[in-house]
């Protein structure tokens, strides 16, 4: 990987999540990382920010969440926050992180519900 990326923070998020789930032998059926920073760039809190990588929305579907320790959403979010702890603590790092964490089954139900409502 000779060239430097223009989205280092997004890359970090992707790398850390996939590496950890691989370690746990879990599937990653979906990992979407949306950069919403531009929606908040004009906010006062962001006025000194230049990275353009401050606000993210992550959708993660993995069977890792089928484990009973991840029954509560809070536990799942804490897990991801834990992986990204340094990036969130760091000055100029991740300022906001929206998470949607689902098991494959939950994702199926959601999709079905959406189609039914459409």
């Amino acid at each position, binding site marked *: 990987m000779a060239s430097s990326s223009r989205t280092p923070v997004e890359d970090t998020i992707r790398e850390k999540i996939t590496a950890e789930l691989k370690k746990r032998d879990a599937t990653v059926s979906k990992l979407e990382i949306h950069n919403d920073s531009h*929606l*908040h760039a004009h*906010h006062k*809190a962001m006025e000194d920010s230049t990275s353009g990588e401050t606000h993210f929305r992550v959708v993660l579907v993995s069977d890792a969440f089928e484990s009973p320790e991840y029954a509560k*959403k*809070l536990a799942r*979010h*804490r897990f991801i*926050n834990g992986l990204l*702890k340094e990036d*969130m*603590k760091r000055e100029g790092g991740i300022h*906001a*992180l*929206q*998470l*949607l964490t689902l098991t494959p089954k939950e994702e199926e139900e*959601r999709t079905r519900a959406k189609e039914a409502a459409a």
Partner: protein
Amino acid sequence: MSTIKDITTLDGWAQHLSSLPPSTLLIVSFNAPWAAPCAQMATVLSTLASEYPVTEPPSTSWVSIDAEELSDISESYNVTAVPFLVLIRNSQVLETVSGSSAVKVRSAIETHAKQSAKPDGEQPATSTNGSTATVDMADASLAPKDAEKQKEELFKRLSDLVKAAPVMLFMKGTPSEPKCGFSRQIVAILRENAVKYGFFNILADDEVRQGLKEYADWPTFPQLWIDGELVGGLDIVKEEMAGDADFFKPYSAKANGDVPATSS
């Protein structure tokens, strides 16, 4: 919704006392502006006050007194530590609460607010901390503390603060002026479900802002706490609602048949 009135002079105090009808429950908060626990008690009380509609004649009256500035008043009520709460009806002291337990304060106020004054007067005065009133300002000591003790105390205050109301929102800004899109959205969800909640503006208090991140093991705001436990942020609240439309029902004004006197 009721608000807290600042009393700054002895005359003002005398006037206020004499203006109250005998049925009004007078809630007096003694504080010291330099003491952090008092700032938190102020939040707890203003949250509580907002749950009591302004009625005619007033059912409750809420005042705040600087214990050092108006030391004559403090002495007459034996205020030896701050924050200190005195509940008065018909010129009789009903109960006092010393210290920063939000739970004790809430329950004392709710108990007495429910009872209206008996026309034939005698209400027993109780003091929840009568035996432990000490000369030093128990909750606001001037002695230098080491960092660990300070943290311990901060965490104790936080553990009370998150229980200040059954549903407690720690947000950026206030419900009428949210300073962040996520905080605004969560307020909207609570409003849509007519949820009764207390709030704390973490932009106004950096100690709570940083302390709560550690206490909750949660790096961001808004944070919604229910019954003293962290539920999570906006996305979790949205997910919970998607999974269960009645998620907030037990805490909603509609469920309990109360119709808010004013819209929030």
